């Protein structure tokens, strides 16, 4: 179903289920059924070369599972991921810069590893010259290559992660909450760096975050997820100018407005239901102010043929032309 020649990644009807049943003996004695968690439940999107698609949603919506499916850390239970690029040139940046760097390796060795894997037999002098260059690119100094990860702050460690990702000469980067563990002033440094690198190296990002203001700054297209599905996908400016899905509006409403402090709000009630037993029909209907009978009985259909502007909501379909 390759419709777009400029698409670097196409995701079709992607599904990932996890077995969260009680152990076999408990099931036998307590007569409990098998239980399945649908972490990703029929997701479609494409990413164009050189662009950033952001997946945004709250914990448990399946956004990180998609990151792991795209990078091959999980196998899909259904659907397809088509990557029209060089698999070896797909890299990932993780949320926790403390856990993703080997504490026993010097930074120089950490950054050199993808290089050595990608081009075995590169002369040592060339490798170390390239490592120095990469460290400079991300705003560190070549002498930092001799230090260990614990000698760096969180923001510097995330720069090391980025340098390591760049060492693999990536064309596609999956970034899973790359700045969530960082302080805001450091977050700004890392986000600016990532934008600059994207422009210079023509990188494509799949950017995962729970923070809509970060996503607005980084993404060309935003997909909002709720309980394993994309509920709305729109180009960034349009999503913020005219959010369609009630859940998107809820998320936008929760962002504190720094230009209008001390606002009194009436936040939308309710919580995300358990993905093990999602509500019937549209999974958002128990929290939705627009819900009517059809939402409780029927699920909005996937419409994979529409790429950049769709909303999975019966109430919106009736009022808007999308």
């Amino acid at each position: 179903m390759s419709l777009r020649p400029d698409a670097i990644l196409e995701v079709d009807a992607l599904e990932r289920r996890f077995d969260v049943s009680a152990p076999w003996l408990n099931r036998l004695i307590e007569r409990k059924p098998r239980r399945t968690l649908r972490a990703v439940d029929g997701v479609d999107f494409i990413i164009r070369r050189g662009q950033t698609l952001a997946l945004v949603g709250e914990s448990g919506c399946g956004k990180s599972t998609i990151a792991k499916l795209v990078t091959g850390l999980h196998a899909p239970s259904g659907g397809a991921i088509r990557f029209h690029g060089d698999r070896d040139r797909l890299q990932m940046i993780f949320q926790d810069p403390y856990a993703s760097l080997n504490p026993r390796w010097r930074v120089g060795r950490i950054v050199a590893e993808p290089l050595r894997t990608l081009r075995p037999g590169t002369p040592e002098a060339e490798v170390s010259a390239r490592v120095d260059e990469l460290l400079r690119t991300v705003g560190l100094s070549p002498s930092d290559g001799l230090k260990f990860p614990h000698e760096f702050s969180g923001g510097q460690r995330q720069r090391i992660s980025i340098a390591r990702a760049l060492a693999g000469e990536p064309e596609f980067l999956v970034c899973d909450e790359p700045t969530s563990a960082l302080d805001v002033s450091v977050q700004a440094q890392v986000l600016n760096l990532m934008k600059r690198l994207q422009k210079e190296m023509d990188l494509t990002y799949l950017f995962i975050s729970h923070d809509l203001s970060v996503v607005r700054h980084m993404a060309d297209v935003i997909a909002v997820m709720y309980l394993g599905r994309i509920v709305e996908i729109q180009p960034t400016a349009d999503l913020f100018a005219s959010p369609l899905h009630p859940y998107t509006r809820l998320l936008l409403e929760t962002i504190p407005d720094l230009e209008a402090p001390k606002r009194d709000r009436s936040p939308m009630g309710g919580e995300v239901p358990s993905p093990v037993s999602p509500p019937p029909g549209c999974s958002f209907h128990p929290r939705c102010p627009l819900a009517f009978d059809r939402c409780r009985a029927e699920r909005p259909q996937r419409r994979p043929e529409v790429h950049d502007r769709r909303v999975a909501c019966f109430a919106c379909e009736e009022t808007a032309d999308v």
Partner: protein
Amino acid sequence: MSDIVLDVRNLRVEFPTRKGILTAVDDVSLTIRKGEILGMVGESGAGKSMTGMAILGLLEPPGRIASGAIHLSGDRIDTLSDREMQDIRGRRIGAIFQDPLTSLNPLFRVGDQLVETIRLHTDLGKAQARARARDLMREVGIPAVEERIDNYPHQFSGGMRQRIVIALALCAEPELIVADEPTTALDVSIQAQITALLKRLCRERGTAVMLVTHDMGVIAETADRVAVMYAGRLAEVGAVEDVVRRPQHPYTAGLMGSIPSLRSEAEELRMIPGAMPRLDAIPQGCAFHPRCEHAGPKCRRAVPRIDGPGAACWLALEGETA
């Protein structure tokens, strides 16, 4: 009678280590009035949590209050014994922490924990205390109280657990609540619910609140006044609308600029170069001067300080940095 609930004067918190004495909080003076929410904001290591812990009398040894005084409604509390402080905590000062599970005992039903706390701090009998627990649970927005009162903490979601912790903190009608990152572990849509709840309860009861967080957005939504901390010292104190809209201290201005805005279309986020110094390497003079574009000779020489509203910056205090 004055309506000042908390009065902190020249507080200094030190940690003696093998390498010398580290000053985590240095010369912090602030007050909170009845029914007022003071936001303490800063990046990790700025000393905001340490200030909260010192007020609660929960500094981990070898940490200690080296100088200064803390008064609660006129009574000096920093010189009390651990035993006396234990009585103050709960009865006169409530605490809410980031992770609700650390405040709840996993082995006891939430209703029993509430009843125990109420009976510890009031003269109510068992039945009355249980009725009070039910009222509190209803007040913090727990649905189906009759069923949930006998549930264990693990049967609640993160947001609901934090509501229980708020109910626990309110049990004895304390004069002051210290809330340390109460919404950081929660999803954005739940965050807004919890801050709205905290705001409503304090307004209704006239409780003074110290809200410690790294999230300027939460502060802007919730607090009446803000104290910005940097490297253990107060950088700026003022009404929330002033600090957010017209920050005086270059650090506050940088912090505000580095938050991705929902309105501006800036291609690059404003950055503060560098990172906050470590406690063992706090620069001479103004701790922010190595990162400050306005720094002059005076900033390298002398420490700017504030006792009330204003910015601890020579440029703001004297109009020049020469």
